[in-house]
């Protein structure tokens, strides 16, 4: 044993330090002998302690601190890149685009940085730059220069530029940066603008957002779902490290929306309405064309509209869609409800004769006709064709208040049609229990209740479609991003009157447009007649409410016309409303223009039978009475005695084989 320690020592010495100097020091081993051992132990302890510390730190880092550290590192290196989804298109019924998106860029810069880097040469450089950008993009050079000279950290120089132009500008001026944008295109300009609406760039969400119309109400469908890509980037820069994509969800483009509108018809109706309203000095106006079998909206026009391409300059009052949002009193157009009820419940037949006095007392007020006359014998058809208020109230009394109120509901008055447009008004029909004594003197002649132009078209669509009212729809289908076309579910049809009643009503309505040989056989809407076709329709005039006194105004009217073409087998229903045109205006000539266009365009077969001349009055009234047309609208349409009767245009026409 004593020999063993010395032997191990050299081994340990050799191991720890085999150098020669140690040999020399070995003479002092007697003194230092315990040192290496202690040093070793201390070294061991230190190493163990270091290891323990390292382990502890490891546990702390991997355990409690792991979350924070990971988040911090992710923040430093990973970036989320949004993949913008393309907004869906709005198409007309033939697939022609009414609104679609194209890729665009915004040119932005930091004027303050330009000023610091260019120093004294800033002014000259900025001028040159403004001129260069203006030349490339067509923007205003002065405005650009003002923006570049402003003391701001961020300015948008040109909001929407084609990508290639933006690239060229950026290559020429390195201070300019591009930002991705989506530019909404409205190739037709004001075409159906009130229906389609507007979408514009939303800087907060970095995407197009609908502001009004279908663009707004169908925003979720059109916008699609933005995609997301998570990548690593160098800190403080947007340079993506290749192959570092951690997560990617592709963007889902928005769905396309196909409308039932017909661009060409829409354009024509819009133009004709605007021209006619301007010519007659109307404040506004609406026109709606429906397909009589399906209730689809083929055209929906407003006299005052805007151009979405110049949206910022648009007059705010032109932005809405009065065809569905602004109810008005329909006037005599509503008499069709009274007539439908009378025929449906068998209280009258088209040729039943009423002895119609010049005025009639209803509760506390007196209702008179628009022209002075004594008691005359009008047929039911005559009452409708001449638009006699007194006769209509007499027919309505035979029907009774409850059955009349029920018929109003069946025609869809007071209810939203669910057409699919935002801001639709249900109109207003007083509830049956709130009726006063005089209410029944108002409603049958179309006063005291309000409808929208679309509801008015819907009423006549029921008559045109053999008594079945199909609530109108304007969105035909949705075309998903996968190309799958989902038609809009068909609305539930409502049986309003029997097919026989509808047929009789149509015949009665043709009397409105008949231009007989005498004043007695002439309807109020003769101007709506189209040579070669039978036209059924009804004129209407309703006094507007004067907001200053809350009473009916004596000089402003809603002039309406609703009708269908061709009368014997209707294909189109047209409803027109003019808001406060000058005196003596009728909407019938506008119906004639729209109807004539439809007949040409759709190549409607010429009517095989001449329009029947129906008896309106059973004995001739004093000639002077008919000439007393003093008020505009219906009254103005009453023929003036002495006008030479024109021969029936289709008389003697041979039907085609």
């Amino acid at each position: 044993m004593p020999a063993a320690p010395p032997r191990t020592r050299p081994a340990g010495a050799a191991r720890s330090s085999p150098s020669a100097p140690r040999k020399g020091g070995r003479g002092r081993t007697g003194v230092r002998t315990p040192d290496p051992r202690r040093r070793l132990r201390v070294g061991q302890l230190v190493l163990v302690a270091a290891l323990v510390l390292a382990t502890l730190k490891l546990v702390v880092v991997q355990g409690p601190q792991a979350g924070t550290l990971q988040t911090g590192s992710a923040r430093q290196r990973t970036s989320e890149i949004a993949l913008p989804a393309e907004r869906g298109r709005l198409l007309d019924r033939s697939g022609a685009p009414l609104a679609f998106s194209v890729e665009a860029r915004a040119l932005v810069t930091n004027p303050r940085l330009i000023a610091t880097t260019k120093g004294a040469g800033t002014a000259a450089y900025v001028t040159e730059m403004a001129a260069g950008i203006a030349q490339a993009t067509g923007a205003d050079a002065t405005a650009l220069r003002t923006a570049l000279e402003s003391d701001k950290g961020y300015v948008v120089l040109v909001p929407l530029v084609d990508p290639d132009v933006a690239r060229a500008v950026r290559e020429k001026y390195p201070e300019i940066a591009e930002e991705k944008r989506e530019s909404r295109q409205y190739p037709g300009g004001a075409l159906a603008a009130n229906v389609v609406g507007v979408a514009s760039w939303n800087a907060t969400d970095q995407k197009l957002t609908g502001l009004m119309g279908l663009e707004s109400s169908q925003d979720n469908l059109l916008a699609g779902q933005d995609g997301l890509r998570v990548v690593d980037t160098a800190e403080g820069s947007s340079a993506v490290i290749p192959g570092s994509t951690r997560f990617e969800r592709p963007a889902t483009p928005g769905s396309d929306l196909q409308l039932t509108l017909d661009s060409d018809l829409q354009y024509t109706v819009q133009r004709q309405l605007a021209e006619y309203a301007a010519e007659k000095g109307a404040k506004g106006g609406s026109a709606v064309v429906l397909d009589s079998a399906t209730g689809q909206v083929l055209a929906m026009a407003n006299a005052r509209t805007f151009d979405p391409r110049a949206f910022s300059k648009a007059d705010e009052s032109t932005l809405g869609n009065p065809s569905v949002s602004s109810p008005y009193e329909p006037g005599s157009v509503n008499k069709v409800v009274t007539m439908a009820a009378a025929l449906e419940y068998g209280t009258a037949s088209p040729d039943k004769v009423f002895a119609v006095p010049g005025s009639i007392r209803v509760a506390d007020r007196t209702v008179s006709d628009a022209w002075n006359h004594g008691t005359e014998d009008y047929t039911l058809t005559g009452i409708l064709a001449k638009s006699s208020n007194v006769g209509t109230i007499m027919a309505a009394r035979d029907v009774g208040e409850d059955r009349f109120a029920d018929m109003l509901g069946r025609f869809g008055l007071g209810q939203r049609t669910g057409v699919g447009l935002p801001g639709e008004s249900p109109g207003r029909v007083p509830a049956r229990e709130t009726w006063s004594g005089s209410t029944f003197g108002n409603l049958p002649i179309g006063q005291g209740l309000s409808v929208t132009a679309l509801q008015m078209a819907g009423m006549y669509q029921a008559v045109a479609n053999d008594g079945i009212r199909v609530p109108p729809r304007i969105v035909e289908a949705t075309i998903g991003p996968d190309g799958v076309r989902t038609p809009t579910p068909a609305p539930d049809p409502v049986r309003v009157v029997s097919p026989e009643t509808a047929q009789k009503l149509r015949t009665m309505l043709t009397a409105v447009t008949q231009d007989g040989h005498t004043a007695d056989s002439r309807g109020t809407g003769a101007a709506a007649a189209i040579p070669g076709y039978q036209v059924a329709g009804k004129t209407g005039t309703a006094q507007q409410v004067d907001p200053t006194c809350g009473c009916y105004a004596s000089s402003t009217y809603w002039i309406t016309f609703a009708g269908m073409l061709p009368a014997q087998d209707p294909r189109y229903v047209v409803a027109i409303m003019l808001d406060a045109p000058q005196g003596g205006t009728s909407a019938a000539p506008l119906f004639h223009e729209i109807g004539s266009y439809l007949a040409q365009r759709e190549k409607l077969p010429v009517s095989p039978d001449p329009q029947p001349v129906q008896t309106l009055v059973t004995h001739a009234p004093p000639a002077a009475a008919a000439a007393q047309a003093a008020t505009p609208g219906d009254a103005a349409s009453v023929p003036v005695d002495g006008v030479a009767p024109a021969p029936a245009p289709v008389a003697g026409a041979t039907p085609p084989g």
Partner: protein
Amino acid sequence: MSAPVVERPRAGSTRAATAATRTATRPKVQPAAAVRARPQRDERPARPAARTVVRPAVPGRAKFVLTVMVLLGIGLVATLWLSTAAAADSYRLQDARAAARDLSERSERLHRDVAALQSPPALAQRATELGMVPAKDPARLVVAADGTTMVVGEPTVAVAPPAAAAPPGLGGDPAPATAAEVPAATSVAAAPQSVLAAAIAAVEPAVEEAEAAEAAEQAAEGDSPTSGTDATDGDTDATDTDTDTADTDADTDSDADTRTGTRSDRARAASTDTDSTSDDSADARTGARSTGTSGTSGTSGTAARSTRTSTGTG
């Protein structure tokens, strides 16, 4: 006691042996270590002997080494070549991507232009510039079964509406040109037509086959249910134009087609040719497809057809 001493060399530690040799202070140990070490050294010469036996294998090993070197060399060259090729391809890829981007941008722009040019307001404006006016109430010819015809309505000359007919906002351009007042001079006619033609010519190469297929599909769906003969109207090719010409001929004969009995011939005799054509082309897309386009010679007829062709490309 001596056991460790004996065992140490057995452990084969040369370091221990050298250390032992160095420790001159311990003579007791030295001989033993020397004795142990020596036989080891003596064994060494035996190894070369063994090698001489293996020596015939040396050419094989050299071959192996050579093979490995060659393989490594090939690998190196291949790697270099591949990475060079990849770098070169990445440039080509970049170029191709830029080209694809340029083309898609161009296609997008042309689509936009075509959409704007074929919209009803733009077509109406161009028709007006060409001096065309919408016909109001046309007279119609009704052909009876026995071939006799009858005029329904009163044929009248279509009159141009007063100037500034287009209401604000419905013009084709945000700032509509005032060329509307110029009568249909050929110089005016040439300008919009060439614009259209340029647009069409530009679109055709850029827009892919899929585009044509789409157009054909659109046409097949029958966007104009009443125009039976024009089912292929959506196509961009020249056959469209041919069909039109044929239609025109048939229409002029008027009795060949039984449908003309109910459809109008529009009393072209009375209204001027330009006018009735104008009406049709102003009708735009589906409307313009009516077979009623009368065969007019000269610019307006061509304009109507080129309008139609441009429609198909959209």
